[in-house]
């Protein structure tokens, strides 16, 4: 059974059909790509899957449970997390604090505990700080630990967003164009980290325009065009698909 199954999802903005009965599956621990031209509905699909946009019809099932009506934050708590096309770092906070916010269910977030469980909170903070240091080491962010997140480069912000997701200990992450605006050297590093995450058992679904990089790391690919899934399979098969070539190149080649 798939970890995440999206079935016959529709979404409309006024008269525009952004998603037209889209179905897609991500298996346990799988690494899957999602490509498509601008406006194909990829990000909208992410938003419906994670609850930012309500589905017009269809269902989102995660770990066997129908979460179509579940609010955003509760989907995340179940282990389904995402990044954004434009990084949404907490710009006035340090990289370290950005990551600290990421951890789930902190006792110190409860006001009562602030008064009655100060010792426990201090211990929890130390434990989280340790994990933050691990995540920073993993993503090569240790150097900028005390920098304000707003001052990071585009690529570092993307890494930071992924780091925040890791603090959540998710089961499945949806990455929206992780390579956009990132310099080639850092792309290499990002790819490497994403593959490593996947190797550790986290299922990953990636939207990306950089087809070459994507094809290199994902074993399976979906292609969307005008709100529909038009092809799926191995990267070679999908990129050779006439419909995909038509959508991308306008039939020129």
């Amino acid at each position, binding site marked *: 059974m798939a970890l995440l199954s999206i079935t016959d999802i529709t979404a409309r903005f006024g008269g525009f059909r952004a998603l037209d009965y889209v179905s897609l599956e991500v298996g346990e621990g799988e690494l899957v790509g999602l490509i498509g031209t601008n406006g194909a509905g990829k990000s909208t699909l992410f938003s419906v899957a994670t609850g930012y946009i309500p589905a017009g019809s269809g269902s989102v099932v995660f770990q066997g449970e129908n979460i179509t009506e579940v609010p955003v934050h509760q989907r*995340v708590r179940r282990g389904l997390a995402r990044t954004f096309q434009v990084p949404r770092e907490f710009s006035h*906070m340090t990289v370290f*604090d950005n990551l600290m*916010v990421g951890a789930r269910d902190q006792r110190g*977030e409860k*006001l009562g505990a602030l008064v009655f469980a100060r010792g426990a909170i201090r211990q*929890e*903070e130390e434990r989280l700080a340790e994990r933050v240091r691990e995540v920073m080491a993993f993503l090569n962010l240790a150097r900028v630990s005390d920098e304000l997140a707003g001052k990071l480069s585009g690529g570092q912000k993307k890494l930071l967003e992924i780091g925040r997701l890791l603090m959540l200990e998710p089961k499945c992450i949806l990455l929206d164009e992780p390579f956009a605006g990132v310099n080639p050297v850092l792309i290499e590093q990002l790819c490497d980290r994403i593959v490593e995450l996947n190797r550790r058992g986290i299922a990953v679904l990636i939207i990306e325009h950089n087809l070459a990089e994507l094809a290199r790391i994902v074993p399976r690919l979906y292609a969307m065009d005008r709100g529909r899934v038009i092809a799926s399979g191995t990267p070679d098969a999908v990129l050779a698909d006439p419909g995909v070539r038509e959508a991308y190149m306008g039939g020129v080649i």
Partner: protein
Amino acid sequence: MEGYLIAISISVLIYLLMASGLALQYGFTGLVNFGHVGFFAIGSYTSALLALKGVPIPVSLAAATALAALAAYPLGMISLRLGGDYLAIVTLGFSEAVRMTLQTEEWLTRGMHGLPGIPRLFAGWVDPRMIDFCIFLLLLAVCAVVFLLIHHIIRSPFGRVIEAIRDNEVAVRALGKNPAQFKTRSLMIGAGIAGLAGGLQAHYLTFISPEQYVPLITFYIWIALVLGGVGSLRGVVIGTVLLVGFLEGSRFLRDVFTGVSEVQLASVRIWIIGMALICVVLYRPQGLFGKSSRRSN
């Protein structure tokens, strides 16, 4: 003269208490609360009415704090699910609704006649001539405790989340946290502090009436915050001391500008505040002691 200085100081401290509540809400959480005076009024009337019924003042003050905080709960639940500026409109409407209610529900509040004879703090405990000074000391202590409390809150994991909400609410949701829940709690704490300030003022003035709780009070606090700098507790203190000190102290301008009528002088005061505000916003938008981050100090 000494008595006057104490009176000004008490006034400053009551505003400071209110301002600290708004600082938590706006400065650290980004909540635009235009109805702060409404919670202040609820605190004043709650504590006054209870004390008039014979409830001991510490208990009535606790009730004032609790009721003001509870009043913020539905406002938060209604408006914080909607984004952005709804809270501003809802809270402004709320504070005016509170004032209207105080005016019209005469069976409870005596309406426009106001509530006279509210038991004074320390009455019967200390020499009557020392009461003002004792109230001043009490307020100083309350302010210190409240500021420590807020400091503790903003440095805690809870504070980290509300700061993150101020920066990017969508991302906070993406981390599995419900921003409305955190914002409602921040709103309630700030409202409770305003309620406490209201109660203390009632037991200092011994007479309250609805027209003391006009929106202007809310905006004075906003001016103080903008002047001093949002997002920093030091800024709150400086802004409030400057503004209220000036508002109360500018009566002495009379002695300087002889030959200027009372009405003109009142206008001059407002003009000076307005100019100061414009200059701060133009040349130092973060406020005199503003900070962009709680960690940068």
